[in-house]
């Protein structure tokens, strides 16, 4: 199924770029329920729907909605279910999307549930790797907050389906959970760990950076030490593979020096764009406009 989504997304790119018109989802309504802010995810879903000729119904501010009066998510879903053909849900609680699917008759697209899952981000990350590098025989390094970063957890699981060789780069206190590493190894992925970007960057095809969150550290000086160590600068790119691609789910703080932006390695802004064709593919598939 992942391959079908990625292939469908590729066909959607000219429409996502506005070079081709489409009315594939004309007459369809997408409800966008974001219980916490996420600008890129929300805007890319909305763009995807508009580019395919569909309409978007936005929940708007939580403070101005019935949720502020104490309505349960289950009730909100049962109501919106009657207004829309599909629902995109972003919620701060883990498992919210699954719960929503139990109360909905229309498809639910999980746009992130707390520290749980963000599957469409994983799909767009995979799509970026496929488009900018290659998924088969991939050597990838993931750097930053690997403990709490749900994007890297899900991406690792997805990469293990393609037999990737994965290097995990993080400070000790932000290591990938042991349970996930065991799962990856069981699935046949080769996993190695290091705390230094320099140790891995010259060997890999893709470097996936994530933001280290300051609030995770009790000691600000410890944060500074770690954050500055896991930082990509133009100087670090001297001996890397010419085809190295650097990805980041954004927003970045200081983990990628702006001098990297102009190099051929920088891929993160295109990665953000790829969210549109991937979400177009998902919407077209779940709404039955494209049959599998």
């Amino acid at each position, binding site marked *: 199924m992942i391959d079908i989504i990625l292939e469908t997304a590729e066909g959607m790119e000219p429409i996502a770029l506005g070079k081709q018109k489409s009315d594939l989802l004309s007459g369809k309504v997408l409800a966008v329920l974001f219980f916490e802010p996420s600008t890129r995810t929300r805007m890319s879903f909305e763009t995807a729907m508009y580019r395919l000729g569909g309409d978007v119904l936005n929940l708007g501010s939580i403070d101005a909605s019935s949720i502020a009066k104490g309505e*349960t*998510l*289950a009730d909100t879903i049962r109501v919106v279910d009657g207004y829309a053909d599909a629902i995109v849900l972003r*919620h*701060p*609680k*883990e*498992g*919210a999307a*699954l*719960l929503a699917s*139990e109360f909905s008759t229309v498809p639910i697209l999980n746009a992130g*549930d*707390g*520290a*749980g899952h963000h599957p469409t981000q994983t799909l767009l990350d995979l799509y970026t790797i496929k488009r900018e590098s290659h998924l088969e025989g991939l050597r990838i390094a993931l750097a930053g907050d690997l403990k709490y970063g749900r994007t890297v957890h899900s991406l690792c699981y997805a990469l293990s389906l393609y037999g990737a060789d994965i290097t995990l780069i993080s400070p000790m206190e932000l290591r990938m959970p042991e*349970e996930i590493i065991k799962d990856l190894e069981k699935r046949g992925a080769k996993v190695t760990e290091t705390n230094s970007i320099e140790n891995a960057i010259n060997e890999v095809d893709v470097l996936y950076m994530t933001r280290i969150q300051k609030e995770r550290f009790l000691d600000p000086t410890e944060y500074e030490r770690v954050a500055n160590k896991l930082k990509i600068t133009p100087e670090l790119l001297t001996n890397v593979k010419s085809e190295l691609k650097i990805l980041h789910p954004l927003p970045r703080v200081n983990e990628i020096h702006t001098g990297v932006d102009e190099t051929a390695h920088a891929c993160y802004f295109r990665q953000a764009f790829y969210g549109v064709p991937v979400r177009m593919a998902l919407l077209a598939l779940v709404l039955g406009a494209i049959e599998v």
Partner: protein
Amino acid sequence: MNEEQELRVKRIENGTVIDHITAGQALNVLKILGIPDSSQGVVSVLLNSPGKFGIKDVVKIEKRELNVREVDRIALIAPNATINIIRNFNVSQKKKVHIPIFVEGVVRCVNPNCISNSNEPVTSKFNVSVDGCLRLRCTYCGRFISEDIAKHLL
């Protein structure tokens, strides 16, 4: 049980005897069964009783036969328990508990941010696996419980 032990807890005419409960878990077994609220008959609890394989707990419930669902739940905290259905002072059925592959509404998820711990109209759901030890995985948030399962009983 020998005669001396019978003096402590007398035989029941009809009901269920749950034997070989992991020592210390008898009160949690009662919690799973909703006792005393759901029972009309006398309930006897024997804690730290000597058995062939070490100490164990025993629960005798008069005038009530357990259903499969209740037995499955007991297995989560007392995987070696045996269920004896007593009819007219005789053991009419004796069976071991089976660890279920799925439980609903039995255990609370350990993750405070799990949607099943909010005011939503859903019950907790867990997939159960035995991989060296008993592990429960929350269907909603994916968090595992593998220690002190009794502590999380609803």
